[in-house]
């Protein structure tokens, strides 16, 4: 064994990675969905929607930046927001598999957003009482943005679901496709329970039940069915992603990896 690898091993063991992983999980949810929504800039159905989607994307990006900075501080190894967003590989990402799913048609984009918003509102609401004051502050600001996102995405889901035959069928197809990825939102990275016990992260259970109530009520208004298939594809929180994330990261990270530290 070389001295270098010996040092690396000791270093890893000395750091309690659970709180860092938890903050990275929240940050990664935001970064990945921001990137997905960013793909639609200049390609939305109309100007109004283009700007609205860009606004939502930038809200998520802003949340990700604050969270990466906080994760780097907790980790204490000198990694900044760019290192964490652009220097990690697929297996290091802790986002829920929901957010990496492709945009699909407009219904799929909006249903994905709706599921994320329905989770983030109660999550940020609870996180704003975190014992970590930085996280509590970030969450208190983010929950305002999340509430608007939820208002917007749920009104789109109702309009599309309860709209024409075509829009109903497409939106139901999106719900059926994405439902199996929603369980992953409530999963926590390894060691998550210690972070909950220390009061840094909120308990997942009440958030999951608020999510469930929101989703069922909006889908009912939208005349859409909640899928009965109980299968849930989990694993994003421990780095086991679907095939889509690698492609997304390739596009998102290539500039930073080709020209590390490049400046405008």
């Amino acid at each position: 064994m070389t001295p270098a690898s010996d040092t690396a091993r000791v270093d890893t063991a000395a750091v309690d990675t659970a709180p860092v992983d938890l903050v990275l999980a929240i940050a990664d949810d935001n970064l990945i969905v921001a990137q997905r929504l960013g793909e639609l800039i200049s390609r939305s159905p109309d100007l109004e929607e283009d700007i609205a989607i860009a606004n939502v994307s930038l809200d998520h990006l802003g949340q990700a930046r604050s969270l990466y900075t906080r994760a780097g501080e907790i980790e204490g190894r000198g990694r900044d927001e760019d290192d964490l967003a652009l220097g990690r590989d697929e297996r290091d990402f802790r986002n829920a598999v929901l957010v990496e799913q492709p945009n699909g048609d407009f219904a799929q984009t909006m249903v994905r957003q709706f599921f994320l918003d329905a989770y983030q509102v109660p999550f940020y609401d609870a996180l704003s009482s975190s014992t970590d004051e930085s996280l509590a502050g970030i969450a208190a600001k983010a929950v305002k943005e999340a509430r608007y996102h939820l208002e917007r995405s749920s009104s789109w889901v109702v309009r599309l679901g309860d709209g024409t035959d075509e829009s109903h069928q497409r939106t139901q197809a999106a719900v059926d496709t994405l439902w199996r990825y929603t369980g992953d939102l409530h999963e926590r990275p390894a060691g998550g329970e210690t972070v909950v016990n220390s009061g840094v992260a909120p308990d997942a259970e009440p958030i999951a039940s608020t999510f469930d109530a929101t989703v069922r009520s909006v889908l009912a208004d939208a005349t859409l069915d909640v899928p009965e298939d109980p299968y849930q594809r989990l694993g994003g929180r421990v780095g086991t992603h679907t095939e889509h994330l690698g492609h997304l990261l390739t596009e998102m990270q290539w500039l930073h990896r080709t020209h590390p530290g490049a400046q405008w």
Partner: protein
Amino acid sequence: MVYEVPKKDGATDPEVAGNPGGFPLWEVFIRANRGLNHVHAGSVHAADAESAVQAARDVYTRRSEGVSLWIVRSTEIHASDPDGSDAWFGSEHPYRHPTFYELPDEVGHM
């Protein structure tokens, strides 16, 4: 990637309020601060009033331009005739401005 909605053979987009294939137009009014009036800011296309308010929020208040929004269907705006503007607005009545007398100092700010 562009969203394309396939149409049945021979189907055309419905014409909505003189805007072929699109959503109706709404005029947007923003109040910048408490105590000020709502001022016309522009317009948005949207399917209904609730979507129009959301679109107006996203398009016209991105940089904290306001604290309140009104929207109204553009077809509900009735305008004066631009051809008659000379008869309506062209004559000068300078004596209607309160500039022909001096305010006593005691009045203070008016």
